[in-house]
């Protein structure tokens, strides 16, 4: 039997996931001491972990080259795609928010607002839902700069503690939605390898409950 392949978002979600896998008895030492390898067998070898950038996790799962994936809801909302979203893992919590300069009423005035964001699709959907025409500009790095430099009226970004916003004279205008890490599955894989995947999901669900 081929090992079950899980694509894992590199970085913070990686650490939380490794901790969870360790807890349910799947030893992840190989991930901790990975060196330069990108495909890593974990536990008894029936599972393989693939380390990837968030958006790539979705791509790999969608195409079925990975059976499962662990990725933030933020990336799912931005890139869409067709796959099953099996479990809210409960870690990697933050939120999408609209934020702008403190003391300025974002909704005032007639001019078309300019929004800077790393997540143009999330921003577009949010404003379409409000029937508001806005101009969206994609920014790759620190989005907080855009209103400070006068390029944008507000930003749509991930907010965790709000410290960065505060230090730059910005404040949350509206929360768009909550975000956390999700377990996603390729639709063919879930059907073809149901027993294995469901057993793993059940264990992860249990670990999540115990965490609470």
């Amino acid at each position, binding site marked *: 039997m081929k090992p079950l392949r899980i694509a894992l978002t590199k970085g913070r979600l990686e650490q939380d996931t490794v901790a969870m896998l360790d807890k349910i008895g799947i030893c992840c030492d190989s991930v901790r001491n990975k060196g330069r390898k990108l495909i890593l067998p974990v536990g008894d070898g029936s599972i393989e972990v693939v380390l990837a950038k968030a958006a790539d996790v979705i*791509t790999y799962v*969608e*195409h*079925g*080259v990975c059976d499962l994936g662990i990725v933030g809801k933020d990336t799912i909302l931005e890139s*869409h*795609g*067709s*796959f*099953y*979203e*099996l*479990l*809210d893992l409960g870690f990697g919590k933050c939120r999408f928010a609209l934020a702008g300069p403190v003391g300025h009423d974002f909704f005032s005035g007639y001019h078309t607002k300019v929004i800077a964001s790393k997540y143009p699709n999330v921003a577009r959907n949010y404003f379409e839902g409000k029937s508001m025409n806005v101009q969206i500009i994609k920014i790759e790095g620190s989005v907080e700069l855009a209103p400070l430099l006068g390029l944008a009226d507000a930003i749509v970004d991930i907010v965790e503690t709000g410290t960065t916003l505060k230090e730059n004279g910005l404040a949350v205008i509206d929360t768009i939605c909550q975000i956390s890490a*999700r377990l996603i*599955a*390729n*639709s*063919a*894989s*879930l*059907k*073809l390898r*149901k027993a294995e995947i469901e057993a793993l999901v059940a264990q992860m669900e249990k670990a999540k409950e115990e965490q609470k």
Partner: protein
Amino acid sequence: MKKNNMITPEGTRDLLFEECLARRSVESKLADAFRTRGYNEVMTSGLEFYDVFDPKYSGINPEEMYKMSDRRGRILVMRPDSTMPIARLVATRLKNHQLPLRLFYTQPVYRSNPGLAGRLDENAQAGIEFMGASGIRADLEVLTTAVEALSSCAPDFRLELGHAGFFRELAHQMPVSEEQLEDIRSAIETKNYAALDTILDTLPQTAAVHGMRRLPRLFGGEEVFAQAREICSTEKAQKTLSYLHKIYHAVQDLGLGERVIVDLGMVQRNDYYTDIIFTAYTEGYGDSILMGGRYDNLLAQFHCPMPAIGFGINVDALTRIALAHGHYNAPSAAQILVFGENGYSIKALSHARALTKQGLRCETSVAQTRAEAEDYARSLGIRRLDVVGDQITEVLL
């Protein structure tokens, strides 16, 4: 301006040699499977009016259709699906024909996908439409054809059964708006248990809401039918369940055995499918290779109400599988190269014709000298050279 005369648009591609052989081999195996069961081929126009695919009944996202306009400003689309055009065809040109109609097609469909995701905008499809009959015999006829067609091309696959009736029946008993119901449907389709729970937690906790919660989890084998019994509270739902169970057993008996699975959470293209829905998966391909179901309401949209069921097969996926498994005739060199000496080119052509009539594959040489012809034959791996002069000499290379 940069010229795009050396590339094809994103989502499209050229096929060469073995790719063509594999694709044609898949297409002809499928066509044979359909033909031997009495299905007749139809081809529909590549350009259609947008109105044929009205999203209200087609369930096709208008943003995915390639559109243009005709001379009178009417909106045209590149055919995004073959079932609507066939329904149109049946409702107009075949409405007085003896029913049921058994039709098949082998033609590409076009969808505009988000870029850079590795999806094709031009998809080769083959499938059947069985129109003018309902009931278990009709359903099993189509399922059997699906199994036979797939068996001819995919070494191993699973056929998955579902039914649109479960979701419809549960939805009927719930006090929700159309938008809310669409959110619920989409959560079930993506097996997004968390999102589904969030929506359902806001509703009064009735038996129907509980059933809806369970729906996406009800997939697998025989055990699903026992688990499903508790969510089928109405008589109608019970009937649907036992109908699906009957179909499940029948398909198992057709030789699929454990390879037939069920998923009661199949809610694709809601409002399009009316009864059974089915799909197929195979190892090594991350998406379904077949999609089909009963769509009894569609023909009424073309003013010719009649029950209908059909499926489409992803020919590109099967071609990929055929290429991976070497299930096609590898392209090979011609058997004979015919070279005419100076002044004997007409004789050489008629010699080649005599050979091809015997079923031999041969090329006629356009080289100036015999040495050039020999070099050419060697480089392509052609093993025999027929030199046509006063006499015809066979040279083995």
